[in-house]
């Protein structure tokens, strides 16, 4: 890092020109014209931090890598602040920082150390933040963010409280809790898919009795699982 870039070596009240202007009259006229378009922040007197950064940037223009590196690190939180204020989402703030760092690098010959570095940086950061918001906006116009689509059950109530493996176990358990006649009716008519007449032959029960028992069994099971669903 050069001596000029070290903060505590700066003795400068901000009024005398930082660097000798090659065309003093022209520079004055030009900066006079620019005053018309200056932002409010730029009209404020320059802070010590701002002067330090201006000196660092001037050193960077001359090829001082140490000053340049320190300056870029210093810029990161400033750029973040601008991006956040502009309404850039947290995920994208670092993208703006990267864009602005690259812009500083490519545009470094355009910086005039007589002017505020902070204002220069802020204008670039705001512009890049807006660019990013537009880019993201366009992306969102084409793509849908739908995390629910990746869930097996969009409706939480449809999800079994336990895993599928234990669901079978619970059905067995529920069947076992039924009275003997009802369990028999479920087994032959539902699980073995026999017709009513076949079932009547294999179980030696009347068709009417089987129908009544199946009906009662289903009612009991429905009551049992219905309760569970409501609880969860």
């Amino acid at each position, binding site marked *: 890092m050069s001596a000029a870039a070290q903060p505590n070596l700066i003795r400068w009240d901000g009024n005398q020109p930082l660097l000798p202007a090659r065309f003093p009259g022209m520079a004055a006229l030009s900066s006079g014209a620019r005053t018309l*378009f200056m932002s409010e922040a730029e009209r404020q007197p320059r802070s010590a931090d701002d002067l330090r950064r201006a000196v660092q940037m001037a050193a*960077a223009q001359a090829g*001082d890598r140490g000053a340049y590196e320190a300056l870029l*690190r210093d810029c990161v939180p400033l750029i973040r602040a601008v991006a956040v204020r502009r309404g850039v989402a947290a995920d994208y703030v670092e993208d703006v920082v990267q*864009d602005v*760092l690259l812009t500083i690098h490519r545009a470094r010959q*355009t910086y*005039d150390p007589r002017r505020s570095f902070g204002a220069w940086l802020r204008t670039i950061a705001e512009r890049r933040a807006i660019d990013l918001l537009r880019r993201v906006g366009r992306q969102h116009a084409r793509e849908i963010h739908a995390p629910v689509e990746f869930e097996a059950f969009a409706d939480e109530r449809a999800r079994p409280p336990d895993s599928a493996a234990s669901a079978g176990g619970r059905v067995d358990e529920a069947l076992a809790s039924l009275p003997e006649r009802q369990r028999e009716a479920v087994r032959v008519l539902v699980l073995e898919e026999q017709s009513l007449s076949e079932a009547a032959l294999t179980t030696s029960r009347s068709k009417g009795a089987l129908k009544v028992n199946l009906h009662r069994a289903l009612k009991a099971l429905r009551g049992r699982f219905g309760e569970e669903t409501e609880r969860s």
Partner: protein
Amino acid sequence: MTAAKHDRLILDLAADLRPVRRLSPPLLRALVWLAVLAGLALALAAFANLEAVWQRIGAAPDLWLAVIGSAMTAILAAVAAFELSLPDATRAWAALPLPAALLWVGASGFGCLRDFIAPQSHVAVMSETADCLMFIVFLSVPLSALLFAMLRRGYPLYPGLTAVIGGLAVAAAAASLLNFFHPYDAAATDLLVHAVAVTVVIAGIRALSGRIFPVPAAIANNVTVSRVAPN
């Protein structure tokens, strides 16, 4: 939060640092281009029949107002273009040449009424106006080559707008110089051809703006990041 996330990029940029020559104030750079333009105007004036030019322009107020308008548009648009070529410029600079451009267009538009005011004027026919078109378009080529070679040293964040304002400066300059070789009075056909020529110049430059100016950082991201040496 720290700058740690951008460590590699910062180190890479620092490693890539080369000394740069700081740009002169934009107004000075605009004046350099305008000085070349003035030199060209003097050279053309040597070939022109200045007496006839003076007589024609002085004949009606709308004619010299249009000349003043186009010349002022060229000057102000050049200043605005050099300001816009800086990354921290506001878009408000683009408005700088507009009043002069309005004067130019307005005064030329008034010339359309010429047929009613001075019916004996020599109004250009289509083949003659084709020469105007060629003059404006071909004079624009060297003027814009120089202007954009100079503007490229900047880094505009509104490259399209900068190109349009630069194109306006070039087209207005060419249209101003045309007055040396323009023995016709303004008329609707003539004005239309001038408008077409100016639009062609601006649109052409606008279309090229992507190649004229450096690639925006956002697009070049991947290139730079991949350049980072793993260490």
